């Protein structure tokens, strides 16, 4: 199917305008990760983390987790923003436009990824203020790759949900029973090694596990899985989720 790049651009631009204008939303969505960083970071400051070498400390363990969490929440919300557009009627305006459905999905992914990445980088900045130290600019470059893959994966997931749901009613259920478990299972706050094996098995089907582990691997140099495994898993998840998200969005009816 043909891709209409102007449409992708204009959808992206709309997302940017909305993002810049919704200052209270930005502050609101950053508050939670900042509190997590501040209070958990301070509270567990002197706790040793099993399997973590070097002098990174708990903040070193926590910061990649919280960056992952920020990406998880903002990307899945972005993916599900289709539902908001449905609620406020704007989706019809988008669906009736003479552009391929793939272009519409790409526009959403572009917009959603950009806002998620900005959010993630802001939290990255906040973690630096709290004493997080990482292994130089090359590490940051690899970190950005993982951040992108996490964003793609959960925007795709959000799109799947949004395309299957008729209205906002299921939104809370998705947040509480899918997104939050993804967060806790990923080992963002606590080492996976501490989970009983049954829970750990669930962790290994959670994309965020590999994302957070990969971020730790590249940013602070310690991880529970080899970084190649993390990268391969994340690329796999991102591709599958984007494909499914696009597929379900295309299949969904416009009203």
């Amino acid at each position: 199917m043909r891709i209409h790049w102007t449409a992708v651009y204009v959808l992206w631009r709309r997302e940017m305008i909305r993002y810049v204008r919704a200052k209270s939303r930005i502050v609101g969505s950053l508050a939670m990760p900042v509190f997590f960083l501040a209070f958990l970071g301070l509270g567990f400051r002197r706790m040793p983390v099993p399997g973590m070498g070097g002098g990174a400390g708990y903040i070193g363990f926590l910061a990649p987790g919280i960056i992952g969490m920020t990406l998880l929440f903002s990307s899945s919300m972005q993916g599900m923003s289709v539902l908001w557009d449905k609620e406020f009627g704007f989706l019809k305006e988008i669906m009736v436009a003479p552009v391929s459905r793939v272009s519409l999905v790409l526009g959403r992914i572009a917009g959603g990824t950009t806002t998620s990445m900005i959010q993630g980088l802001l939290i990255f900045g906040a973690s630096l203020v709290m004493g997080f130290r990482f292994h130089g600019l090359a590490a940051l470059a690899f970190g950005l790759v993982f951040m992108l893959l996490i964003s793609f994966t959960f925007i795709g997931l959000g799109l799947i949900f949004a395309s299957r749901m008729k209205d906002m009613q299921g939104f809370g259920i998705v947040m509480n029973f899918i997104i939050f478990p993804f967060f806790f299972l990923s080992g963002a706050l606590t080492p996976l090694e501490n989970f009983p094996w049954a829970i750990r098995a669930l962790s290994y089907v959670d994309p965020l596990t590999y994302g957070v582990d990969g971020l730790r691997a590249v940013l602070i140099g310690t991880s529970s899985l080899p970084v190649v495994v993390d990268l391969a898993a994340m690329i796999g998840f991102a591709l599958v989720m984007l494909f499914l998200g696009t597929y379900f969005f295309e299949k969904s009816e416009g009203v």
Partner: protein
Amino acid sequence: MDAIRVDGLVKTFEGFTAVDRISFTVEEGELFGLLGPNGAGKTTTINMLATLLRPTSGSAAVAGFDVTRDRDAVRKSIGVVFQEPALDGRLTGRENLEFHTMMYGIGKAERRRRIDEVLELVELTDKAATPVDKYSGGMKRRLEIARGLTHRPKVLFLDEPTLGLDAQTRRHIWEYVRKLNKEAGVTIILTTHYMEEADFLCDRVAIMDHGTFVALDTPVRLKDTLGGDVISLELEGDAAAFLEELGRLDWIKRSKRHEDVLSLTMEKGERRIPELVMLAQQKGVTVACVNLRKPSLEDVFLHFTGRTIREQEASPGERNRSMMMGHGRR
């Protein structure tokens, strides 16, 4: 070529038939109305023609393109103004129009020119930089109509264009719609449940009820099917001779007497008044008062469905029906 050709179109939602085998054609340049109560299937019909819903069966072509097989070509040829606002409230009026024109692939210079032009047309130029959230209902409607025009569609769909607007704004939009149709030659399909709107605007009207068309014709001919106008004469004096004379006139379709008032049904009643008054005088009867009542589309609706459109809306069964429809439409 017909602007719209619909053949046996059906849409069912989970066992409920919202649109039930309708067929019609709309000529290029026509202003065509779908009139009916809420839940009659008007919006579902529009949504299928606008490629937003896939028909369950039957076929439809807009501007010569099939609505299921050639969706992008249909989308390029149409403009749609939806029943509920489809604007991004956080964007300004101009930004909403820019979004639209860019989606339709209109180049930068042309875009600016057309946006200025349509803003002027709907008198929103001075509000162009205001976020749409701050607009009134009427302003939003006008902006949406303007938006539907920026890409110069061949066919424009207006779904309840004046729903919930005050009388003055409604008039304004009527005049505007008419101008568009007559001057710019845009084919317009509008849905409404306001009788006077369909009557005032449309070249032809399809009366829709429970997903089917119960009648389709020009407003004038629809009203003529009722047998014409009703003239009431208040008579003074002995009317026997006059009544006898009236009995011989074949253009009087029905006559009914209630005390001093005589009600006569006929076509083109306004042309018959002088004749009737003269005849009464000849027969020695004084006409104290004459009243001519034109049948409205309301009467037509009553005639074809056995209910007035307001009764339809008030009955609980109908309300459930329209709620189901609302559910299906989302």
